[in-house]
């Protein structure tokens, strides 16, 4: 599974979710490969794990302002601050984006499981992946602001289940909030 194919699947799924559920047309920015997963250091980030013969993680990240706008579009009401509803909305958007990527990947890579999203919000946080795999970073411009989908996928050494995946995912994220 190469970067170009992952980029294509992520773009297709993200555009579909934003277009159908939020009425937002996304603009593509240049996708690239990153050896680590530093991601943003502030804003909102949702993480989801994928498990099967191939396993990995995916994230959706955006600024706090974008998160409020995205939640506002999804739920048809304004949000002045990041609250539970905004975080839930970003988690669900991530679930739909990566869930549809997963469904497309399954045609080639076999059945995969998807974890429940974990959503992080704050400032001065860092993320770190235990896995050594490279990440495909697929950015978009959403209502004038940058949002990113990161996806890391590699053949699984053992066809582990969601339990192992969830453990990896938790240990993979180090969140240091103000």
């Amino acid at each position: 599974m190469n970067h170009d194919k992952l980029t294509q699947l992520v773009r297709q799924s993200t555009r579909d979710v934003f277009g159908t559920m939020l009425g937002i047309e996304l603009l593509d920015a240049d996708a690239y490969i990153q050896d680590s997963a530093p991601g943003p250091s502030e804003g909102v980030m949702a993480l989801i794990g994928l498990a099967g013969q191939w396993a990995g993680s995916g994230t959706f990240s955006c600024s706090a302002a974008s998160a409020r706008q995205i939640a506002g579009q999804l739920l048809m009401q304004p949000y002045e601050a990041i609250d539970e509803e905004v975080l839930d909305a970003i988690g669900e958007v991530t679930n739909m984006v990566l869930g549809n990527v997963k469904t497309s990947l399954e045609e080639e890579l076999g059945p995969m499981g998807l974890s429940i999203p974990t959503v992080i919000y704050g400032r001065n946080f860092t993320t770190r992946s235990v896995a050594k795999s490279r990440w495909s970073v697929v950015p978009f411009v959403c209502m004038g602001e940058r949002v990113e989908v990161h996806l890391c996928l590699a053949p699984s050494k053992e066809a582990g289940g969601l339990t192992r995946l969830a453990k990896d995912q938790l240990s993979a994220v180090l969140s240091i909030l103000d």
Partner: protein
Amino acid sequence: MALDVMIVDDSAAIRKILHRVLVQADVPLGAVHEAGDGKEALEKLKSASVGLILSDINMPNMDGLELLSALKGQEQTRDVPVIMVTTEGSSSRVMEAVNLGAAGYVRKPFTADQIKEKLAGLI
């Protein structure tokens, strides 16, 4: 006669959206109950009788397929139509849901019209 509905999804955002779609749909809507997972849904269904259930699949504690199986195994809920509304789109998952007795399957992301179409086919 008013139709009471149960919406089962771990996302409050999706529950809110589906509730709004139900209100907009051309159905005589009664009470709308909500649950965050299959376990909570079964608990609430002990005291609430509904004519339709919309359920996600990928949820904590008890997923949508386990819920569907449990519903079909209980006399009081066996005949209640269950529409799965989920990101799970692989043919094996769809078949699993159909074999367990799902009355419909809508993939996320969905449009309001897709949900309304499924409702119209059932009611």
